[in-house]
């Protein structure tokens, strides 16, 4: 069931994720969505984040995370979706979802997936201010986050 791993240039939907996590014996469902935040700390507001990806290796790592969630946590359905390209503030950049028999493993697996995804999947982000450029006065690395 690694069809649940996806890189997408189109908006992501929590409703679609919930539909992908159905199953009559799956009592606990946890869905996490990371949204692009307007950054309030800098002189310019973040209007969007550009997500860059190295697709082959990214999908390979995501499929490994999917397998880990099933083996280690007993996740029975997994959603691991990341948007790429420009994502406007307020929209969803990443969704992880897990359905399991009970709530404890569902929470644990979802937390594992998002934490490890951020550290190990070859995806990078660049903030964009209103002009479409990086916010003025910012230093690298960008500090705006979708879900921190």
């Amino acid at each position: 069931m690694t069809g649940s791993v996806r890189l997408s240039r189109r908006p992501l939907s929590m409703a679609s994720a919930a539909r992908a996590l159905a199953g009559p014996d799956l009592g606990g469902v946890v869905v996490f969505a990371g949204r692009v935040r307007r950054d309030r700390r800098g002189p310019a507001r973040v209007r969007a984040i550009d997500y860059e990806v190295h697709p082959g290796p990214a999908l390979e790592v995501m499929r490994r995370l999917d397998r880990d969630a099933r083996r280690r946590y007993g996740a029975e359905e997994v959603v691991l979706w990341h948007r790429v390209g420009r994502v406007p503030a307020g929209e969803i950049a990443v969704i992880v979802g897990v359905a399991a028999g009970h709530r404890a493993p569902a929470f644990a697996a979802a937390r594992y997936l998002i934490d490890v995804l951020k550290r190990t999947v070859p995806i990078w982000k660049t903030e964009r201010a209103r002009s479409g450029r990086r916010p003025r006065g910012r230093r690298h690395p960008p500090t705006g986050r979708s879900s921190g």
Partner: protein
Amino acid sequence: MVRAVRVLLFATARTAVGRRELEWTVPPEGIQASELARELATAFPKLAPTLRASRLVRNGHPVDRPTTRIRPGDEFAVHPPYGGG
């Protein structure tokens, strides 16, 4: 005959070089990964600090040893620290 490695540059590596992708000519017998990185850092001095913080990836798989040989036709990617989500 293929003589070049396809170099992929992401995020800060891309901005340091100003391009997403390069064709980098190497000897027919290939070149060690660490040596290829050194050549790139020499050609693009702004890339040097990013290279030191980056993972090198050959044909989609992390380069574990600096002596790994990169051959003509290979894909060689520079992965700065990840930041998805």
